[in-house]
């Protein structure tokens, strides 16, 4: 169920250059699934006015906490990065449909591909896949070393490969360069990242089952305003989908790239 809640800041830490890890406590956590997002109002004033969509990166239902990992670049995320322990944040969520964890059979292998700030939601996904007895392979691309994060955490869950555009960390290049070399065997692809990366993955693995998470500018975040609409391919029954309420995760081939 979608709720609006003032969640308590339990922790806020900078984990890479302009990348923050924010842990929030509240009841929204109980309904959260990997790949879903929350819509955050960072200030009670009219500045900035709109909420900011951020993916849920790590869920801890026992502690009633989840973690968000975000890049502070614009006004809204900059204000969010100044929140301190004890502050409250106005959160609407959980929103959208996340990654289907049960799309891979037990004993199968999942390939998780992420780009930059698209990597966070893959962490909770990887945890839940592993808990179901699924092998995970992580291939993540970043611009430079100083914006990479969570390498150790992902390594503890499965095979982990980092790629940077300038080669300062891991292999040099794009995720598809490394995938070309690794030629990993897998059953299902899960990916989140910039559009060019998602597009490249669609052509790279035309026959594979996969789920891609999309980003689009949002108004309401709940499906009412038609801001976040994407055209679909003829493989879809619908003419269009809304990223916020039909997505942000779609089966490969549904959204026209």
């Amino acid at each position, binding site marked *: 169920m979608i709720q609006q809640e003032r969640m308590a800041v339990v922790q806020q830490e900078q984990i890479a250059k302009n990348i923050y890890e924010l842990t929030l406590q509240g009841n929204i956590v109980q309904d959260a699934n990997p790949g879903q997002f929350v819509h955050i109002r960072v200030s009670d004033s*009219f500045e900035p*006015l709109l909420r900011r969509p951020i993916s849920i990166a790590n869920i801890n239902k026992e502690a009633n906490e989840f973690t968000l990992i975000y890049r502070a670049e614009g006004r809204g995320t900059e204000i969010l990065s100044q929140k301190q322990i004890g502050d409250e944040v106005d959160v609407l969520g959980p929103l959208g449909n996340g990654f289907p964890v049960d799309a891979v059979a037990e004993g199968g292998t999942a390939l998780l591909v992420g780009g930059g700030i698209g990597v966070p939601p893959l962490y909770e996904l990887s945890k839940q896949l592993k808990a179901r007895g699924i092998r995970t392979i992580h291939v993540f691309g970043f611009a430079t070393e100083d914006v990479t994060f969570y390498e150790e955490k992902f390594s503890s869950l499965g095979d982990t490969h980092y790629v940077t555009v300038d080669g300062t960390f891991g292999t040099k290049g794009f995720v598809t360069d490394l995938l070309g070399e690794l030629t990993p065997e897998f059953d299902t692809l899960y990916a989140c990242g910039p559009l060019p990366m998602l597009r490249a993955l669609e052509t790279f693995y035309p026959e594979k089952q996969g789920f891609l998470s999309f980003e689009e*500018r949002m108004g*309401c975040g*709940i*499906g009412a*305003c038609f801001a*976040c609409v*994407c055209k679909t391919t003829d493989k879809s029954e619908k003419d269009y989908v809304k990223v916020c309420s039909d997505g942000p995760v779609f089966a490969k081939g549904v959204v026209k790239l």
Partner: protein
Amino acid sequence: MSNISVQLPGLNLKNPIMPASGCFGFGKEFANLYDLSKLGAIMIKATTVEPRFGNPTPRVAETPAGMLNAIGLQNPGLEKVMSEELPWLERFDVPIIANVAGSLLEDYVDVARRISTAPNVKALELNISCPNVKQGGITFGTDPVVARQLVEAVKVVSKVPVYVKLSPNVTNIVEIAQAVEIGGADGITMINTLVGMRLDERTGKPVIANGTGGLSGPAVKPVAIRMVYEVYKAVEIPIIGMGGVTNAQDVIDFMSAGASAVAVGTSNFVDPFVCPKIIDELPKKLEELGVKRVKDIIGRSHR
């Protein structure tokens, strides 16, 4: 407790608060959050004869205390609105105001004729002011003669009272208001969004794919209040005011300027519970002012 009910042509409103067109879809999403029967009315998303996909994305951009949108009247088309959206809304005890749009006069007439037969549609709102479609829309809203002719044509076929939604993108809004009143409009809704543009800091190009978009939110409230104030003085028909409403004080401001009821748009995105919150807050605010019936504050700026 102050009485907050209001009677308008076709509309018996429990309270003067309703979500504005395009900011509430056809109600389904918000029905997951609260009981829609609590609302005074619902202004549904613009309906056109055929389904419309709308404009390319990005369709929205944030601006200081506001936002720009160029959705482009995306909607499932008249057939589906009649067979699915409106029947679904019948489970709630709330009057529906159907926002009607089109490119040609005939389109408005066709939509109005059918949609006004739906049992829960108690009034129409002619959208002659959408800044985001290439043809029609705003052109009907900027020329008083064309606006009047459109209202006359729709009045012939509509089974319910007809309200006309005015565009603020004109030099003289009073002239348009008077023209639609002469054309037989039962009421006026105002304002639609103000045409604006935001540039990307790096590229210098418009952020919205459509180039321009409609400005809404708290930033436009002073413009909206001024326009309601002017139109109230010039026409006899009632006004439903909107533009940047976020709380009960804003509602009181609009009603003081001359609105008989108030619609809430962009604020639904900021706080999806804003409408029920305002409805709960309003009686207290009125009591503070010593007002027994909300009707009594309509147009008090002018007395």
